[in-house]
Structures are given as structure tokens and as C-alpha cells.
């Protein structure tokens, strides 16, 4: 695809703009911002990727991954400011998920050790881990707040902090991972996954694209479950002090 044809596709931006204007939907500003940002961000990423792919240098690959983890942490930590040390807990979670998945992929030679594989897969894994972290933190903080009486009850009867938040932890892990699992049940029936569609359009053999998509789906299952469990087990101890007393969460600033 050329830049010229991309320019023509701007028609797809003009249609919502015109509709928004005529129907007074007030979506013009956000649509324009979204368009400009996506063009700049994706082109920038494209150029950087081209550079990294050409050099094939491990250092650049690592640098890209570090940047991805930094950006994911920056995004997700806002949802967990009430949890002490949330920043490094997220960093640790993202690193673990990345090392685990790439370790298996590269270690068992499932994918080749090239930037062309490592970077997009890392992007999907870390991006998904970030979304899962946000889902988990949102749910966990609200569970802990609404169930604070139950937590104190269990402590008062001689339960440990882990026993006191066990239910909240499990509920939050389930609630955050279920969408990932559910969405795989209907995959392909309604819409083709974005990555697979992209590959097919770019000329790949559909069956190859499917095999690769399956790999990614399985990878994201691990990512989802490991992210929620790890973040949960890193987070719950900060809700208590060394005398096993439940510390009230600071009210989240809206």
C-alpha cells in the first residue's frame, strides 16, 4: 500500500466528521485528535521497527521491550495508586510474563529469534498483560473496599491476611481473566482476529495465518492468567501491616 492510497483512505475519516457535524454529535474534535495521533504514533513505530529489523541487533530489541514495559506500566499504575509499590509490582509482572512467553517460544524454537517475531509478539503479550492488570486492579480494589467488613471479621476470628482477602482475590482473578477465555470461544465465528486478517491481506496462506493466530491465542491465555495471579499475590500483602491489621485503602481520587 502506498502513501497515496493511505491518503485516499482518509475518506473513512471524513465520513464520520461530516455525519457528526450534520447531526451535531460533537465528535469532530476527538475524531481529529484520534486520527492525527494514530497516524503519528503508528508511523513512528513503523520507522523504529524498520530500523530495528534492519540492524537485527539484540540491543535494539531489548530497548523496544523495555520501552513497551515502561509505557504499559505508566498506563496501568494509575488504576492501582492505592496499592503501595504498584509501579514495581507491575514492572515485575510484565517482565515475568515476557520472559516466560519468550522463553518458551524461543527456548523450544517455536518462533525464530528475530526481531520480526520477537517484537510483535512481545507487543501483544505486554499489551494484553497491561489490559489484564487494569481489569484486575479495578476489580480487586472495588472488592476490597466493599468487602472490608468481611475482611476484618476473618482477621478478628484468627484468620491470616491471605485468608481474609482470599475470596476477593479469587473473584478478581476470575473476573479479569474470564473475558479473555470467553472471547476465544466465539473467535472466528463473528469476526476474524485482527492479526490474522492482517496476515491474510498481506498475502499469507490462510491456514498459516490460522496456526499463528492460535499460537497467539494460547499465549494470551497464559498471559492473562499469570498476570492476574501474580499481580494479585504481589498486591494483597500491602493491604495489611505486620500486626496483621487491615489498612483502609485511601479513597481513590476521581
Amino acid at each position, binding site marked *: 500500500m502506498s502513501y497515496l492510497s493511505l491518503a485516499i483512505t482518509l475518506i473513512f475519516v471524513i465520513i464520520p466528521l461530516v455525519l457528526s457535524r450534520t447531526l451535531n454529535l460533537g465528535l469532530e474534535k476527538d475524531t481529529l485528535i484520534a486520527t492525527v495521533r494514530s497516524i503519528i504514533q503508528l508511523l513512528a513505530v513503523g520507522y523504529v521497527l524498520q530500523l530495528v529489523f534492519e540492524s537485527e541487533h539484540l540491543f535494539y530489541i531489548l530497548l523496544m521491550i523495555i520501552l513497551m514495559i515502561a509505557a504499559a506500566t505508566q498506563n496501568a499504575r494509575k488504576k492501582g495508586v492505592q496499592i503501595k509499590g504498584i509501579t514495581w509490582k507491575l514492572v515485575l509482572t510484565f517482565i515475568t510474563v515476557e520472559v516466560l512467553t519468550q522463553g518458551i517460544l524461543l527456548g523450544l524454537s517455536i518462533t525464530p529469534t528475530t526481531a520480526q517475531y520477537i517484537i510483535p509478539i512481545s507487543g501483544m503479550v505486554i499489551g494484553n498483560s497491561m489490559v489484564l492488570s487494569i481489569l484486575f486492579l479495578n476489580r480487586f480494589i472495588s472488592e476490597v473496599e466493599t468487602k472490608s*467488613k468481611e475482611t476484618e471479621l*476473618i482477621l478478628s*476470628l*484468627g*484468620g*491470616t491476611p491471605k485468608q481474609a482477602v482470599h475470596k476477593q482475590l479469587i473473584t478478581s482473578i476470575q473476573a479479569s481473566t474470564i473475558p479473555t477465555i470467553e472471547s476465544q470461544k466465539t473467535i472466528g465465528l463473528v469476526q476474524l482476529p485482527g492479526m490474522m486478517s492482517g496476515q491474510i491481506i498481506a498475502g499469507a496462506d490462510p491456514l498459516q495465518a490460522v496456526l499463528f493466530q492460535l499460537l497467539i491465542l494460547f499465549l494470551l491465555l497464559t498471559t492473562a492468567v499469570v498476570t492476574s495471579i501474580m499481580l494479585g499475590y504481589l498486591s494483597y500483602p500491602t493491604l495489611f501491616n505486620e*500486626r496483621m491489621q487491615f489498612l483502609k485503602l485511601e479513597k481513590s481520587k476521581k
Partner: protein
Amino acid sequence: MASVNAAVQWNHVTFSVNGKTILQDINGTFLEGKITTLVGPSGAGKSTLFKLCNGLASADSGDILVAGKEIDSYAPVELRRMVGFAMQDATMVDGTVYENLAMPLTLQGKELTEDKANELLKLVGLPATISDQSTKDLSGGQRQKLSIARTLVNRPSILLLDEITSSLDRVSQQDVEALIVRINKQYGTTIVWITHNLQQARTIGDYTWVMINGQLVEAGESFLLDQPENDEVRLFVKGDNS
């Protein structure tokens, strides 16, 4: 200076939350084997005092001695099993009556036998048939009875009861009063009972504490409630007696 028969001794205990003083210079004793009733207007800090005693919160300053030992010298779990606490609103976890009743043991990886469970339910005046019911279906009064039974499972030597008869009708209240007195006599359990019912405080208590505004304003034998020395206490007692 723990006297031999102080189950809990409070020495200059203060406690605050976010800079707001909730308990101020509390000095006094819950005598071992006795029933102390604790009265005072809402917000006086009564429930907070219990939280400190059960180890759910720590004092900012002062000492609390439990059975003669500094409260922090106990492991939290050990302290909480020894100092039973039936909380104000009889909180239950989602699940059945049996699951809630057995919780103090399940938390230790032990099991409460069906016989023992039924015996406890009977003790507090609940039919054994509700064992498998969800606690969501219980009335306020049934929850309070279950909460008392659950607190007994750990066989605490000190029992803190926070407004445990507020949702009960007069007959059930008298049953629970008789039960608590029986536990006190039979096992020598030290009992501290927060109540809004001054009549109850007078008749059940050996000793009574009156708390107002975070302070312990009067403490002594329960009949003293009839002729309070402190003006604030007199006002409080009159107000409630109308």
C-alpha cells in the same frame, strides 16, 4: 502494673484516625472472670476500644496488657483466638450458616463436627435445621445469635460482645443474657458487653464503664449507674431512660 486479676488492663491508651482523636487516655481494667458492661452514646469509641483489644488496630500510645502481658507480645492470631469478638453488625461471609459457624476452625484447617455445630446452634437458641441455609436468608436476630455461637468456637478466655442483642425481641434478649451469664459462670470467661440498653447494663454487669466522646468518664460497679457522679453520665443515663 498489671494486677493479678486484670484480664485486660488499659494504661493511658490513646488512638486516633487521620489526626482525629477517637480514644483519649483510657485507664482501667476488665476484671478477670467478671462481666463488664460498656455504655455510652454512639460514636463514643466503644467499638474502637474492642478493635484495639482484639488486635485489629494498635494504640498510638499507652499500653494494653492482656492477661498481664503486653498486647503486642502475642502473635496476632493467638491474641484474636484468645480474645473473642462478636462484632456490632454480626457480619457474615457469603455462605451457609454452618460455613460461618465453622469458620474459626476452618481457618485453622480443622473441622467442626456436625454434632458440635448443632450443639452450638442449640446453645444460642437456633434450630439445627438452619445449618444449610444461606446466611443471606437470616433475620437480624438470627444473625446475632449465629455471630455469638461463632465467637464461642475458639473458646476465648475473654469475650467482647458489641451490641449483640440490638435486633432481638425481649424474650430472645433474655435468653442471650442468660446464656452469657452461664458462659461466664461455667467457664470463668471474662465478658465485656457493649449495650445501648441501660437496664441490661445494670442487671447483667458486675462492673460498668461509661464512655463519652472517646473518654472513659465513669467506671465502677454496675449499680452505680443509678446514681452517677459525673454530670455528663447523669445526662446520658436520663436521656436513655425516658
